[in-house]
């Protein structure tokens, strides 16, 4: 008993003596993020590697819950004047962050601290989404874009060729055959508004909102009830009625149905590759293809989703110096290639794409190439550079509510989309009134 006490005291004494020297030597930088499971482990790995690479700064990666939770935590902390240095914010929060006045723009931070990062190396779709006046306001981190997945086993059973359907006509034909051959779900999609409305508009060079999707000024109304939007929703409504399209819920809930081998054709984020690989192991085989196109509409490009790292105001200069160093480390080709390789997110710099090609990564993981090829072959136009809306999460909600009303046949495609536009206009007007 006594020896235990003595030993405990000794350990404590050493800890007390040793701790200040460590704490004094390193400036701590808080990084709040929303990455779970494997992705969370990778984030910790990044922080650990950076911490080991130098002696001045210590990045502390802290998981703060879902994307909305993380943003709310950062907002609360900022209002309490104790903000984290770096916070990961999802793409729909971009306008909120840009308007907030709480942000230290990344391009400026890096320049102010004498660090050079080659921003021109950042791939176009990512750069355009998060830039204002040609300058990146947040540090590109995890980006993905939707692609098409198909279940090879179900295709074989249905007598379909082992090839991804390239158009919506082909998707419909394949899904019908799949259902006829006993598949429970011919076609389905995760993240309904993102894959089926936002991305379909961008992919076909159709405007999603006014003011160039909110890039030329605060958007005030959506444009999704035009001929393209209606055609798209009528197609899906018919699909739901005829049984070749199964709606499986909001967020990524539908991934459960693809993952257990029910669905033949499926749309989701390219970042789903990792999880699908694990879910399908030993059960079924699958492959990816570019997003299906609707005949008669022009070529645009798919847009990205995911999140970026924002730097908040209110920290000390020497801490910002550390953040700049950390971002330089993050932006290195080696790091970008590693991060994209282990997660399935798209590499965000051209040099990382080249490095991955050179190392033969894509010949080993061909499915990861689909998203990159899709983005490279697309045409970046004002309609496909991204979407920037105030209160975007509420707008997305309004759209998904009406998608459900359309798919269930409660409303016509036009009626549903008109209602979504009316509700969104109200939401956007509120945001505009705040920042007029």
């Amino acid at each position: 008993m006594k020896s235990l006490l003595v030993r405990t005291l000794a350990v404590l004494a050493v800890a007390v003596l040793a701790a200040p020297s460590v704490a004094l030597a390193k400036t701590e930088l808080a990084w709040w993020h929303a990455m779970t499971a494997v992705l969370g482990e990778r984030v910790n790995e990044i922080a650990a590697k950076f911490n080991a690479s130098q002696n001045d700064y210590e990045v502390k990666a802290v998981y703060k819950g879902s994307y909305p939770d993380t943003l709310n935590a950062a907002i609360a902390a900022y209002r309490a004047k104790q903000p984290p240095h770096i916070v990961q914010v999802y793409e729909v929060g971009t306008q909120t962050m840009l308007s907030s006045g709480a942000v230290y723009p990344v391009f400026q931070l890096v320049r102010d601290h004498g660090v050079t990062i080659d921003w021109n190396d950042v791939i176009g779709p990512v750069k355009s989404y998060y830039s204002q006046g040609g300058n990146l306001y947040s540090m590109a981190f995890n980006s993905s874009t939707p692609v098409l997945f198909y279940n090879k086993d179900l295709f074989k059973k249905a007598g379909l060729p082992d090839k991804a359907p390239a158009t919506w006509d082909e998707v419909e034909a394949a899904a019908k055959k799949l259902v006829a051959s006993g598949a429970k779900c011919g076609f389905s999609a995760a993240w309904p508004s993102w894959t089926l409305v936002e991305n379909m508009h961008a992919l076909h060079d159709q405007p999603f909102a006014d003011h160039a999707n909110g890039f030329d000024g605060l958007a005030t109304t959506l444009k999704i009830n035009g001929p393209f939007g209606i055609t798209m929703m009528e197609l899906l409504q018919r699909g739901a009625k005829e049984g070749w399209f199964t709606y499986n819920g909001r967020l990524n809930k539908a991934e459960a149905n693809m993952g257990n081998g029910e669905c033949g054709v499926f749309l989701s984020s390219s970042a789903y590759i990792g999880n699908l690989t694990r879910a399908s192991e030993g059960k079924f085989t699958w492959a990816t293809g570019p997003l299906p196109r609707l005949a008669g509409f022009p070529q645009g490009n798919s847009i990205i989703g995911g999140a970026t790292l924002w730097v908040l105001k209110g920290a000390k200069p020497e801490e910002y110096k550390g953040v700049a160093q950390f971002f330089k480390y993050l932006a290195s080709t080696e790091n970008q290639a590693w991060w994209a390789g282990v997660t399935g997110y798209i590499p965000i710099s051209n040099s990382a794409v080249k490095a991955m090609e050179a190392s033969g990564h894509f010949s080993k993981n061909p499915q990861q190439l689909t998203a990159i090829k899709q983005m490279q072959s697309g045409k970046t136009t004002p309609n496909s550079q991204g979407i920037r809306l105030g209160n975007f999460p509420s707008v997305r909600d309004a759209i998904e509510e009406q998608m459900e009303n359309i798919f269930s046949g409660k409303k016509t495609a036009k009626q549903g989309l008109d209602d979504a536009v009316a509700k969104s206009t109200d939401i956007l007007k509120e945001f505009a009134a705040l920042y007029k």
Partner: protein
Amino acid sequence: MKRSVFPNRWLPYALVAPQIVITLLFFFWPAFDSLRLSLYRASPFGDRLIYVGLGNFRRLFQDDAYLRSMTTSFVFSAVVTLVGLALALLLASLANAKIRGLTVYRSLLLWPYGIAPAIAGIIWLFVFHPSYGILPWLLSFVTAYRFNWFLEGWVAMMLLIVAAIWKQFGYNLAFYLAGLQAIETAVLEAASVDGAGPIRRFFAITFPLLSPVTFFLFTLNMTFSFFDTFGLVHAVTQGGPGDATSILVYRAWKDGFEGLQLGYSAAQSVVLMALVIVLTAVQFRFAEKKVTY
């Protein structure tokens, strides 16, 4: 009522002080802050605060979706409370009988209360799930109708109601059991002798004598289904399909914490607060008179 006498004048105040501080700090302060915020259009990071008077409330009551949500909430709460209490009373009466292994049944019946609403939702989600749920699978033998709560509002609503009732069931049962055991058997025996059958005995004696318990549980279940079911909705339907299961408390959360429309969300919480105050006041004013203690 019996008056307790404390030796020191200040001791009773000191004893209730912690509770009062907690109430002021965690209930009154946020409530007043919501009241204040509901009059503003506020930016998330707090840099803009524009006074709009009753603008947020006007926006609320001009929104059909909000009025629909109010109906949804009342229907949901009423069904959860009434069906939940009726079922609990029925099972409590049965569990009050003298049968073998009674304690085991009782313990089993109490279990669901220990489960968080969100978890209860997930459990029932597995039962109802259109592709791997057991219920749609069983029903597929009887009917060709597809019970898909991703698209059918009423199926989603039913799922939530069942889960909420089930979750609250153990709690209601425990109170009813205690209430039943407090009833003097002599009274029931006397009625028996007078020729009253079990049903007559229940409605003439047991039910009136249980009225304080019923009253208490009614208020509690209404509040539970109005507020605590947030986790359930969040985990299972996210308010959909369409806005079929978008109850008031879920909307307030969604507009506030996902949509970051703080003033608008605060206005919704003020409406909720007013509703609960009115509801409780009405219950105490009218229902209490009919309750026999």
